[in-house]
C-alpha cells in the first residue's frame, strides 16, 4: 500500500482580498511598485518579501503572508482608490498537501488536469473538491496548498477520499 498523502492545516495567515477598480493599469503599476515584482494576470502566484500574491481572475487577487503582516492595512494604503480591499485572514482554512502519490490521490478529490506539464509549479486553480469550492496552489513538485471557506472545513475533512492521512 503506497504511503498516504498528508493533509495538514497551515498556521493562520494574514490574507487580503484585492479587487481592482476600473483603472487596471494604474492598479497593476501600484501593486508592482509595492511588491517589486511582475504581477501575474492569469491564474498564477508569485512571491516577494514574504508576500504571496495570487491572481484569481482578471483584476482579482489574494495576498497572503505571516499572520502579523496585516496585509489589508498595507494594501489599503498603496491601493487607495484603486482597489477594494477585504480582510480574509479568517475566511479561509488552508491545508498543505504533500506526498509521493499526491497527484494520483488528488485526482480522487478534484476534477482538473493535474499532470505536471499542465498544472505547473506556480499555477493555481479555482475548482471543486467533491462538492466544495476550493482553491488549489501547486507550491512545489509534490506539494500543494488547498484553501476552503472556513465553514466548510469540517465537511472537507470528514469526506476525504482514500489515500489522504489527515493531521489536525
Amino acid at each position, binding site marked *: 500500500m503506497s504511503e498516504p498523502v498528508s493533509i495538514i492545516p497551515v498556521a*493562520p495567515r494574514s490574507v487580503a*482580498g484585492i*479587487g*481592482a*477598480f*476600473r483603472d487596471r493599469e494604474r492598479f497593476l503599476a501600484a501593486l508592482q511598485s509595492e511588491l517589486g515584482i511582475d504581477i501575474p494576470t492569469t491564474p498564477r502566484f508569485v512571491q516577494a518579501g514574504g508576500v504571496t500574491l495570487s491572481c484569481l481572475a482578471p483584476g482579482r487577487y489574494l495576498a497572503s503572508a505571516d499572520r502579523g503582516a496585516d496585509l489589508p492595512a498595507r494594501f489599503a494604503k498603496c491601493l487607495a482608490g484603486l*482597489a*477594494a*480591499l*477585504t*480582510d*480574509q*485572514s*479568517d*475566511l*479561509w482554512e488552508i491545508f498543505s498537501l504533500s506526498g509521493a502519490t499526491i497527484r494520483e490521490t488528488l*485526482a*480522487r478529490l*478534484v*476534477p*482538473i*488536469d*493535474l*499532470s505536471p506539464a*499542465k498544472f505547473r509549479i506556480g499555477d493555481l486553480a479555482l475548482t471543486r473538491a*467533491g*462538492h*466544495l469550492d476550493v482553491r488549489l496552489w501547486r507550491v512545489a513538485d509534490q506539494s500543494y496548498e488547498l484553501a476552503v*471557506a*472556513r*465553514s*466548510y472545513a*469540517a*465537511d472537507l475533512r*470528514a*469526506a476525504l*477520499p*482514500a489515500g489522504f492521512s489527515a493531521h489536525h
Partner: protein
Amino acid sequence: MQDFRIAEGGLIDRSRPVPFTFDGKSLEAYEGDTLASALLANGIRLVGRSFKYHRPRGILSAGPEEPNALVELREGAAREPNTRATIAEIFPGLAARSQNRFPSLTFDLLAITGLLSPIFAAGFYYKTFMWPAAFWERVYEPLIRRAAGLGRASGLPDPDSYEKQTAFADILIIGGGPAGLAAALEAANTGASVVLAEQDFALGGRLLSDRRIINGQPASVWLADTEAKLRAAENLRILTRTSITGIYDGGTYAGIERVSDHLPSSHSQPRQKLWRIVAPRAVLATGAIERPLVFGGNDLPGVMLAGAVRTYLNRFAVKPGSTAVVFANNDDGAGTIADLTAAGIKVAALIDSRPETPPALRALAAAHTIPVFTNATIRQANGGIALKSVSLGGSAAGTKIACDLLAMSGGWNPAVHLASHHGGKPVWNEAIAAFIPGPMPPGLHAAGAATGQFSLGDALATGHAACRSAAGLEAAPPPNFSTGDESAAMTALWQIADSTGKSFVDFQNDVTASDIALAAREGFTAVEHLKRYTTLGMATDQGKTSNVTGLALMASLTNRTIAQTGTTVFRPPYTPTAIGALAGPHRGQHYRPTRRTPAHGWAEQHGAIFVEAGEWLRASHFPQPHETGLQQSVDREVRAVRQSAGFCDVTTLGKIDVQGPDSAAFLDFIYANAISTIAPGRVRYAVMLRDDGFVFDDGTVARLAKDHFLLTTTTANAARVLRHMDTCHQIYRPDLDVCIEPVTDQWAQFALAGPQARLVLEKLAGAATDVSNAALPFMATIEAKLCGSIPARLFRISFSGELAYELAVPASYGAALATALLEAGAIPYGLEALNVMRLEKGHPVGAELNGQTTAADLGLGKMLSKKKDFIGRALAQRPALCAPDRQALVGLRPRSAGATLQAGAHLIPAGAAATAANDQGHITSAAYSATLESWIALALLEGGTTRIGQIFRAVNPLQNTETEVEIVSSIFHDPDGRALHV
C-alpha cells in the same frame, strides 16, 4: 469434483482451487474462473428461472450481454441481485443463489405461469385484471409483482464505499481486445497519454476465447508480449474490470471500475470507482455481440452462443456439454466444430442454414465425421429442464438429433451503443446484416468488430489506423499482423418458418417471436412502441442479444426494410450501474455540503440542538437539564431576551462587501429603496426585488464609508443574491465601477438583544469603546474593541424588537466571543426563539418571502423608491401585482385561549364551507408566543389589513382539524417600537 473440466489448457490456475457455493451446495473451481465457468465445470447448467414464465434457464453467453444466468451474490446488506454469473469472478467463499424460483430451481411452482402463457402475452396488463377496478392496486398488481421479477434487493443501506476519480488523457481506448490493443501499441509509440479501459479482468477480448495465430505463433504469445509492452510504457494507464458506460459532452467518458467485487472482502477499499475520463480523442474498440437464433425452445439450459462455447472450451477449459450440435448461419459460428472436437466433445451435427456450406467447412466436418445439414434449420430444441435433443427443419425436416449442448450463431452485432450516445443513429449495413456506427460523438474513432469488420486481421489493422487518426497523424502501414485465413461469411436468418413452441427473442423479459407478431397485429409497429409494448430490450441486459433480432422481425412483419424500421434510442449507462458508484462519497450526511459556524463547537458544548438551515447547521435551542420539551426551552429563551438579555449566532446570514466609486449607484440599482442616501456609519433595512417585481430578498445595508458598504442577506438566499449581484454588475451595469466580494465566512456574528443588552455590551467593550446610546444610536454602526483586544464591528439593529446589537468579529474569535457573552450574563438562544420573537414583531422571513409576494403584499410597498430605477421596478407596477384584493400579510390570533395554529392552514370566512372556492389565504408562520401567552400566526389573506377584526376558519384538511381565528395587526408586540430606541 469438476467433472466437466478439461485436463489441460485454458487460462485458469489449477494450482489454486477455489471453494464456493451455489444454492448452498459446496463446489470447487479454479482461480481465473467466472461463476459461470465454475458452474459449468461442475456440470451445473440450470442456473435460474425466467422473469414471467419461470422457465428453466442456463448460461447463454460468456460475457456482459448475458440475459439468463442471473444470480444473487453476497449476504445481508451487501446482497446484490441480478448479477451476471458470466461476469462474476470466482473467489474463495463466494456464495451465490439462484433467483425467482420457489421452492427450488429444479422444482419451481410458479412455472405454472408458463401454462397460462396465452393470458400473459405481451401487454396483458392492458387487457386483463381490470375488474373490479379497485383490485388492480390492492390485489392483482402485488400478486403479479410477487410472481414475476428477478432478484430481491436487500432493502438495507449499501454498506460498501464508492469512490470517484478523474483522469485526463490524450486518447482513451475503449476495449482491450485485438483492435484496442493494436491501438494502444500505436498510441504508446506516439508518446500520447493514454487510458485503456477493458471491462474484463484480463486484456485480450476474443483472443482469450478463440484459438488464433498471430505472426506464426499462438495469439496468447502476442497478447503477453503486447501487455508487457503496454505496462512498461510511460503515460499509459490500463484499467481492467472497467466498463465505459457513457459518452458525455466535452470528451468526457464515464467508466465503472469493479475495484473489489472479485475479492472475498473489500478490506476498506472502495467496492467500485466511477472514473471521469476526459479525452479529446477516443478509439471505440468495443467489439461485437453474437446474435442468438430464434426457434422453439431456444431458451433451454444447454443452448448457448457459439462464441461463448469456444470461450468456455478455450479460456476456461470447461466442457459445456458432452454431445454437441452446432447451428449457424455463418463461418465463424460453424467453425466451433473444430474447438469442440479438439476438446474431446462429440459433435453430433453441423446445421448450416445457408443454401451452401463452404468447402473448407465441409472438409473440416468430414475430417471429424461430423454430419453436415445444409440449407437446414433447427425448428425446436427439446427437453424439460435441460436440452435433450433438437428437431430439424428446412431441408432436414423430420430429423431429430440427441444432444445436451447446442452452439448457435446468428452472426454478430457490432457493439455500437456508445457511439450513439450523442444521438447519432447507427446505420444498417446490408452486406453484413448488422448495424454499424453512424455519426459519432466528436473525437471518437471506431475500429475492429465494432465497425462490422469481424476478422482478426482487420481488428489489428483498423485498431492501429484508428489510433493514428485519433492522434491526428497520417495513416501509416501497421506492424506485421499476419493472422491466417479467416472468413466471416454470413447469410442473415431472422425467422425459422416451421418453428414450433415458444421462440424467444428477449430472454430476460420472456419476449417471444409471437409477442412481436402480436404487437404488429395491434398496431405497435414503431420500434419505440414495439419496445415498450412487448418490453423487448427493457430488461437489465438492455436488449444486447435481442434488439436487432426484434426489429428485424418487426421489419419483415410490416414489409419494411430493417433500415426503415430503425433502432430505439441508446442511452447511458451501457451496463447496469450501482447507484452507490454514481453517488461516490456523497451519501448520507455527505449528500450535500454542511457548513458550521465558528461557534459551532462552543454551541455543541453548551448542549445546543442543531437543525439544518440550508447548508448550515444552526442551533435551534439550548435545552437546560430540567427541561422536558422543546416548548419549555423556547419559552425560556424568549422570556430571557424580552426580560434581560440573550445572544444568538447569526453568522449564517450572507455578508457581502461592496466597494468602489459607483458602489452607491450600484446598490441603488439593486435595492428597491434608497441606498445612496444612507450616511456613513448608518445601517438601513433594505428590500431587493426580482426582475419580475416580486420580492427576492431582504436584509440590511451598512455604509462603512462613502464608497464602502457591507450588506446582509437571508441565510437561504446568500448564494443567490451574490449571483444576482454579479449578473447585474456584469450584464446590466458594466458601466459601474464597483467590486463585490462575499465575506460571510470571515466574520462570526452574534445578535445581542434585550433590555439588558447594553449593559452586557458595556462589559465586553470596557473602556476601549463607547457603546452608549449617543455613541451607538439605533441603526448605527461603529468599529470597536471587545474583551480588550478583539477587533469588532457593532451594528445597532434589531430583529427581535428589543434593544439589540449585532457583534461581528473575525471568525477565529467566534467561540471566544460566545464565551464572553455568556460570562457577561447573556443567555444563548436559538432559531426557535428567534422565530417566535420576529413573529411577535410581524417581520417577514422566507415563509412570507416565498417568491409569490410583492413588497406591497408584505406591507413594504412604501419602500419602493419613486426617485430611481431599480431591478423589478417596472414589472412591480403591473396591475395584477397592485390589485387591492391580493393576498397580503396579516396577523392571526385564535379565538379560544389555548388553541393552536398551524402553518399551512387555509383561511375560510366564518360560516362558509371549507372548499377551494372559499379559500382566501393561508397561514405562513405560526408559533406559541411566550410573551403574549397565546399562539400567534402570520398569514397571507385576500384584502390583507382591510380584514382586521373579521373571523375566519383556519382549516387543516390533511388532519381534518380547524381553529377559529381573528384577523389582527401583524405586529403583535410593542407596535410603536419603543423598546428599540431605549
